[in-house]
């Protein structure tokens, strides 16, 4: 990427954060907080009704996000934020539901839920902070760790293939797919804002520095060095074929908005189909009949 995005310095989002829970637990230089800042900006700009907006996290450093955001917020179990959010959304369809969690949570232990929610086009936004490792537990190898990168349970380097999350999301049925890095905060916020304005399954991956574990173990320097890597190696390719966006160790990072399309959601399909088959006996669910 060649144009400079600015990090928002001040925190204009006090009403969107649980100030009574600050200071947060994240390490100095961790990228998670900056993604939360983008999220808060997106919430503010999108002007959606925040009383009707809920956030669900799983477990991990990123999983703590739900605890800091001043919305109806749920800190659930490792990997299960998406099915939890599915129940929440279906029980109260007027909610805008956001899942905010880590790569291990969403693509490792929760991978099955991820592909099924995308397949159903469940109306939710999944924001995945991809720091290439299981940070909370001390930097173990993940389904997203680039091949050859070092992790505490891959002490000789990772010899597995890693997931390309945008490809997985699109193949599974997501109707909005974007990837950015923690350097592209404005674009992250913009993508989030676009997703907030859409219906259907939206997926936003944010490559984010874990300075304490991933960076240190791989001798990649501090937060600034990682930002430099993102700056030098990221390349914006909107609409890129998601089959081509896989990530290699310290290699090129293809970012951008890859997918943005419309498709009936789970509830649209349910209502339309049951209405067709059952006729007048069926009253559409989750839409007002007044």
């Amino acid at each position, binding site marked *: 990427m060649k144009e400079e995005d600015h990090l928002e310095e001040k925190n204009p989002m006090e009403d969107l954060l649980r100030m009574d829970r600050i200071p947060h637990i994240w390490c100095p230089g961790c990228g998670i907080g900056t993604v939360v800042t983008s999220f808060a900006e997106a919430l503010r700009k999108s002007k959606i009704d925040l009383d009707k907006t809920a956030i669900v996290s799983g477990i991990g450093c990123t999983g703590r996000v739900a605890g800091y955001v001043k919305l109806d*917020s749920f800190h659930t179990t490792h990997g299960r934020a998406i099915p939890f959010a599915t129940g929440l959304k279906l029980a109260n369809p007027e909610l805008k539901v956001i899942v905010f969690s880590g790569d291990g949570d969403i693509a490792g232990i929760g991978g099955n839920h991820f592909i099924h929610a995308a397949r159903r086009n469940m109306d939710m936004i999944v924001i995945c902070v991809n720091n290439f490792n299981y940070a909370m537990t001390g930097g173990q190898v993940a389904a997203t760790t680039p091949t050859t990168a070092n992790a505490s349970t891959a002490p000789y380097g990772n010899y597995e293939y890693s997931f390309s999350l945008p490809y997985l999301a699109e193949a599974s049925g997501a109707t909005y797919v974007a990837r950015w890095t923690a350097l592209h905060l404005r674009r992250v916020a913009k993508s989030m804002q676009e997703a907030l304005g859409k219906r259907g399954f939206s997926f936003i991956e944010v490559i984010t520095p874990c300075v304490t574990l991933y960076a240190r173990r791989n001798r990649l320097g501090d937060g600034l060095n990682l930002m430099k890597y993102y700056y030098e190696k990221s390349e914006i390719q909107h609409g890129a074929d998601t089959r081509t966006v896989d990530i290699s160790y310290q290699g090129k990072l293809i970012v951008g908005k890859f997918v943005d399309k419309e498709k009936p959601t789970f509830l649209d399909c349910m209502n339309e189909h049951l209405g067709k088959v059952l006729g007048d006996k069926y009253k559409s669910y989750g839409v007002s009949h007044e």
Partner: protein
Amino acid sequence: MKKVKADPKGVLTGAHYLDGDYALAEGALAAGCRFFAGYPITPSTETAERFSERIPSVGGVFIQMEDEIASIAALIGAVWGGKKAMTVTSGPGFSLMMENIGLACMMETPLVIANVQRGGPSTGLPTLTGQQDMMQVKWGSHGDYEIIALCPDSPQECFDLCIDAFNLSEIYRVPTFIMADECVGHMHEKVVIPPAEEIELVERKWFKGPKDKYLPYKPDKDMIPFMVKAGDGHRFHTTGLTHDERGYPALNAEFQEVCVRHLVEKIRMNADKIIKLEEDEIDNAEIIVISYGITSRVTTRAVQQARKAGIKVGTIRLITVWPFPEKRIKELAKKIKAFVVPEINYGQIVREVERCVEGQAPVIHIPHCGGWVHDPDEIFKAIKEASK
């Protein structure tokens, strides 16, 4: 506790010929359950099938999830979204649910899970009966917590106890279990569903105060905190971590004490109000047979035989298995000659009986490894032996 009448939309009033699984679905609909997430597993699948067929005309959601972990997670989400919610499963699926049952306990989420038990361990006997998950339901998730578990012995009771289960779960904000078994689940019998106005339901304990004053884990006078649903402007937080009244993580021994003690005590201190037993001819009994679920029906035959033979035998049927009726068993242990405990496992609830009896009377266990029910004769012989 606010009581309301059932919504007639969900109540299929009349006399029906139903199996236990179908009766569970009808009980749930009558109790106001409008969200069901599940994954097929014999011998419980018919409940999901029935619910999926009925819910479009009642108004609500059925969703077949990708597995049982997703099902229970979706249930918890749905309850915080404002619905009453249920799932059904059997052994393997029940095992998968364990971690999130703990989450439901920790978040004090009212919901109902039915386990139509089959023979285990592992895939075991998919189509044949068992009562082998009776300890798992109490202890299966890690950590200390209490739940409520009920045991139906007929399709009628599948219906009735399903309503009780929803009510209890709302009163105590606790996951409540219906521990049925394959025999009861697949047995067809008459099930009478009363008119809606005769079905009393407990309304969720909704918080009515100022929106920014809501504390999801502040116990009320009756120990039970108030509930809200997402989307009503409270901007509340809840977590599976040990937490304070605000629902914020509080990761130390002091809050562990407050938080976990509350989860345990809200059930233990209310045990007398929760426990339902069916007792027969206890007053003059020398022998008492304690049983539950399908095994109670087999016991009835054995007891008739024993009484004909002149043995003074009484019975206790555990409608509530958890919390365990320890007070009652302790009291009776002083008076009688022996307890006989038949169950379709290799020794589960009998351990609870032994614990309560404290060596004051012999406790004779009649195990059965599953696949079928006891031969009544076996129970009769044990009663006879005990009476000598």
